[in-house]
């Protein structure tokens, strides 16, 4: 757990480089890769919000259904109620948070594996409701022709958000702000309490921490951001349907989180970026579509066997090596094994 919290000069340089990369990204990749960038950035938020939820030690399998709740709610607000899209998106995120709040009551009576399966059941029931009722959820075909983010026309500047590069910047802005919020929560007292509940829940309760309230808080905040990601997704693709939020998608979130690493806040982000690039760019580029799932499965197995602590362990080792080369104190190098 101990890690350096202050940012040195190397850190600032790193951040600037990263910022430059993020801003330049759409212009150095191909058209189709721009589309991938948008989807990837949205998934970064999904995965980062999932991390917050897992800090309390409970792993929910309803997370993508929260994303779906935000997507469906935002779509309905915009299409059926005529809300302006930005407002609908916030509304969607709030609805996702509310759904999570409601689900907290039955779900947090369970722990561990039971919570895992219980959250799956609760999420799946909601998803089946979307599938069953054509009115208002559109049934198996879902909702289509969802309005996109409105064009910004200021006379001297026109930004059309249909263009993936522009939508990417919009999503990037929203996601960066969200990541900052999530990071601050993780590093705050609330975040510490989440950790405490995870590792020492009896002890925390004995000092008066209401575990249920904190678990619910983590669940609701995570759902809010997942819902926001869902709304961004809905207005980009202009369509939502129940298949997009099923157990397969949830499994991918799990894969990204676990392969990325669970001890650092950037772990899941590393996971989603690396695995998406491998799957969508590298494996597709080889051109053997039929074996792509096999190769991906093989990569997962190799990744988890050789990097049991996740991809983040590579980053940690690299930064340790850098630090040692500079002769600085190795206290930050203590890694949870």
């Amino acid at each position: 757990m101990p890690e350096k919290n202050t940012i040195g000069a190397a850190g600032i340089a790193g951040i600037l480089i990263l910022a430059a990369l993020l801003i330049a990204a759409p212009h150095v990749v191909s058209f189709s890769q721009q589309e991938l960038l948008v989807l990837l950035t949205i998934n970064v938020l999904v995965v980062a919000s999932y991390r917050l939820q897992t800090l309390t030690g409970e792993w929910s399998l309803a997370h993508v259904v929260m994303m779906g709740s935000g997507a469906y709610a935002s779509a309905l607000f915009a299409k059926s109620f005529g809300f302006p899209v930005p407002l609908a998106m916030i509304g969607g995120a709030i609805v996702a948070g509310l759904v999570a709040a409601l689900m907290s009551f039955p779900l947090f009576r369970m722990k561990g594996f039971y919570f895992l399966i219980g959250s799956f059941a609760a999420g799946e029931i909601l998803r089946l409701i979307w599938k069953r009722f054509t009115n208002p959820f559109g049934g198996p075909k879902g909702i289509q022709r969802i309005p996109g983010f409105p064009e910004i026309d200021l006379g001297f500047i026109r930004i059309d958000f249909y263009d993936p590069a522009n939508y990417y910047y919009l999503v990037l802005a929203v996601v960066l702000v969200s990541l900052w919020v999530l990071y601050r929560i993780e590093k705050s007292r609330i975040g510490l309490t989440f950790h405490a509940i995870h590792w020492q829940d009896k002890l925390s309760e004995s000092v008066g921490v209401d575990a249920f309230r904190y678990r619910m808080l983590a669940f609701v905040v995570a759902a809010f951001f997942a819902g926001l990601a869902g709304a961004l997704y809905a207005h980009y693709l202009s369509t939502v349907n129940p298949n997009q939020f099923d157990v397969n998608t949830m499994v991918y979130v799990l894969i990204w989180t676990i392969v990325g690493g669970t001890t650092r806040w950037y772990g899941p982000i590393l996971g989603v970026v690396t695995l998406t690039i491998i799957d969508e760019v590298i494996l597709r580029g080889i051109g053997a579509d039929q074996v792509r799932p096999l190769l991906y499965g093989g990569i997962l197995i190799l990744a988890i066997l050789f990097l049991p602590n996740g991809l983040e362990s590579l980053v940690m080792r690299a930064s340790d090596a850098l630090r040692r080369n500079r002769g600085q104190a190795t206290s930050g190098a203590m890694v949870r094994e």
Partner: protein
Amino acid sequence: MPDFLLQTVFNASYAASYMALVAVGLVLIFGVMGVINFAHGELYMAGAYAIVFFYAWLGLPFVVAVGLGLFFAGCLGVLMELALFRPLRTNPLGGLIASIGFLLILQTLAVLGFGLRNQTVPPVSQGRLTIGGAILTYERLYVIVATVVLLAVLWLFLRRSKFGWALRACAQDREAAALQGISINQTARYAMFIGAALAGVAGAMTAPLVAPSPFMGHGIIVTAFIIIIVGGIGSLEGAVLAAVLYAFVHTFVTTFFDGVIANIVGLLLMLAVLVVKPQGLFGVRERA
């Protein structure tokens, strides 16, 4: 009406049988090794494709093909244990990821080897049992009989043999079992073989009835987890009884209402058990 009820009972018994085999297999693996094996449905699929290969293509007798399917699935299980679960013993989340990877590999191999489309298996028997107006075909009857026999054999094995005791000890408390000198690795291999073989046998026996496809494992795994939760994670008896309960509820609701509602009812049933009695109907111990 009584015919209709009896028919539904026959249908439910068949469903309960193969689900019980799959669920008991999953309990063994999860209960003994603490690993969530996402690829369990693909072990079922492997058993079904063994029948396609040995029975439909090579023309071996059905019973022989089922035996080969059982053995093949069991070996796949042991392979998973040796290559994936043992190195990841201390990392259950990692084991889950590895099992997902293995799932993708098995599915793709099935597509590459047998093609995308469903296979059909020639009928094993066209005979049937008719009671009143209700019909139970021999193919379905065999599944029910085989399930009863296999579970009885398993029960005897667990109660009477040394390995059986070791398995149950590991399921109850792994550390204590290790302290008693029980080899976790060996027990895990047995558990994986038996658990996988049970799933494989279920797939093999239902292959003539369901048109095997590379993705047939997908629906099974979710139902299997629901059943073992309802039955109680450490409990084999619980898995069997929960399978029967779930199959009967699902079949009856499907027959009298529809399949989507039956799925929702099944999930609600599971949630109810989780809320009211989290250890499951026959829960042995609470796993955190």
